[in-house]
C-alpha cells in the first residue's frame, strides 16, 4: 500500500499547477479523487501512479515526482480516463504536457526507449513528410542501441536486434515490408511547420 498522505508545497504548487492547466487545457482543480480514471487505466497496475494520483501530485506541488513517474511515459493515450471522468479531465493531455516539460527541463526520461521512439518517429516525418517504417525504425534502433551500448547493456541490445530482425523477416516473407521511401513534394511546407513548432 502506498501512503495517501502527500506533503503540500504551497509556494511550488500554484505556478506548477497554472502551467500544466494552461498547457494541457485541463481543469485539474475539478478533480475530486473519485478514481474512476484509475479503475479503467490499462497501464495503472504497472505504473503505480494512476491518473488521480498524478493529478494529486501536481495539486500538492510535488514537481519532482509529477515529472518523473512511469505514468508520464507509459500512458498509451487511450483516453479511457478522460472519457469516464465525471469532470472531463483528460489525463493523457496532462501526461503529454509533462513529457514536454520534462524534456524542456532536460530530465532523463524514466523509460528512454519510449521517448526515443516518438522522437525518432518525428525525425522521420520531418525528413520526408511521411513516416517510412524502415527509416523510422532505423533511426530509433540506432539511437537506443548507441545509448544502451555506452552503458554496457550488450544483452539488451542484442535481444532487441533479434526481435526486430525476426519481425522484419516475417514481414519480408509476407510481402509486407515496403522498401521504397515515400516523400511529400511539399517538404518545405512541412519543414516550416516543424520550425515554427520549435519556437513554441
Amino acid at each position: 500500500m502506498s501512503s495517501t498522505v502527500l506533503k503540500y508545497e504551497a509556494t511550488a504548487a500554484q505556478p506548477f499547477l497554472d502551467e500544466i492547466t494552461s498547457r494541457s487545457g485541463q481543469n485539474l482543480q475539478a478533480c475530486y479523487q473519485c478514481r474512476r480514471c484509475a479503475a479503467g487505466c490499462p497501464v495503472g497496475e504497472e505504473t503505480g501512479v494512476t491518473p488521480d494520483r498524478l493529478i494529486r501530485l501536481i495539486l500538492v506541488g510535488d514537481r519532482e515526482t509529477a515529472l518523473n513517474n512511469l505514468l508520464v511515459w507509459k500512458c498509451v493515450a487511450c483516453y479511457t480516463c478522460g472519457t469516464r471522468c465525471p469532470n472531463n479531465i483528460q489525463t493523457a493531455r496532462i501526461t503529454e504536457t509533462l513529457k514536454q516539460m520534462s524534456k524542456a527541463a532536460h530530465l532523463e526520461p524514466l523509460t528512454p526507449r519510449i521517448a526515443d521512439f516518438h522522437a525518432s518517429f518525428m525525425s522521420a516525418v520531418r525528413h520526408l513528410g511521411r513516416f517510412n517504417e524502415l527509416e523510422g525504425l532505423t533511426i530509433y534502433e540506432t539511437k537506443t542501441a548507441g545509448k544502451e551500448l555506452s552503458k554496457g547493456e550488450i544483452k539488451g541490445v542484442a535481444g532487441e536486434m533479434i526481435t526486430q530482425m525476426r519481425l522484419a523477416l516475417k514481414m519480408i516473407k509476407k510481402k509486407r515490408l515496403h522498401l521504397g521511401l515515400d516523400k511529400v513534394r511539399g517538404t518545405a511546407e512541412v519543414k516550416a511547420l516543424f520550425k515554427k513548432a520549435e519556437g513554441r
Partner: protein
Amino acid sequence: MEIAYYPGCSLHASSELYDIQCKMVFRNLDVELKEIEDWNCCGATAASKMNDFLAVALPARNLGIAAATGLSEIVIPCSSCYSRTLVSQKRLSCDPDLKNTINAELIRKVEGDIKVSSILEVLKPKVISGKIAEKAKKKLDGLKPACYYGCLLTRFPCDVEVPDDVENPQGMETVCRALGAAPVDWSYKTDCCGASASVNDADQSQLLMSRIMKDAVARGANCFVATCPLCQFNLDAYQQKVGEKYGIEKQLPVYFITELIGLSMGFDPIEMQVDRHFTDAMGLLKELKLI
C-alpha cells in the same frame, strides 16, 4: 458519389493491402475514393506526445489540401489518422489564432469544415440503404467475429461528436450482420491493444493484447475484425508471441472489415491479399467453405 480519401502512411507501407481493399470495396458500392494529393503524415501518437503544435499543424496541412478539393467529406480508414485529423479540425475551429498561425505556412489553407469520417461512418449508411445487401450476396455463415474498435474510434481527447456508442459501439457489428456473420458479444472491444507501444514498450503492449485475446477466445469468437491498420498489425503480427507467453492456445485471424465485405462481394481473396496476414487468415475461410 465522390469522397476525398486520406490513406495515411501505414496504408502506403505495411498495410497496403487495406488500401487495395478499400478501393475495391468502395468502387463496388459506387463510392469513388479521391486520394488527396501530396498528403503528409498526420503525426500519429508521436506528435501529440512530443509537440502540441505539430499535433495540430501536421493534420492541418492535409485538411487544407482536402478543402481545396471542394468535396464535402473525407474518409480516413486508419483510426489514428482519423482521430488526429478530427481533433486538429476541432482545435483549429476553437482557436482562430492558432488557425491563422498555421494557415500562414500553408499553400492550401484550412477553410470550411469538411466532414471527417471513419470508414464505419461511410459504411453504415450503405447498410441502412440496402446497398451492401445488394452487392454483398455471399453470406458469411459460420464466421463469429469479435469486432475490435480499439481506443481511437470512440474516445477523443477533446469534445467532438462521437458517431457511435462510446463504451459499446455497434457500427462494425451492424456491417458484419449485414454480411451474414454472427459477431460475438464481448468486453474488450474498446480496450487498448498498445499498438503505439509494441516496439518501445513491448511487455506492456503484449500484456494489453493478452487480455483482448483471452476474452475473444473465451466468448467463442473464431476471428477478429478491425478497421484500424495499427491495431490489425499489432494483433496479427504479435499474436503467436503473446499466445505463447500467456498460454493462450487459440490463435484467431484478424480480418480487416474490407476483407469481409470483399469476400461477401465475391472478390478473390488473393487479389485482396488476405494471404499476407501473419496469423493465417485463409484457413478459417476454407474450413467454413467461404472460399
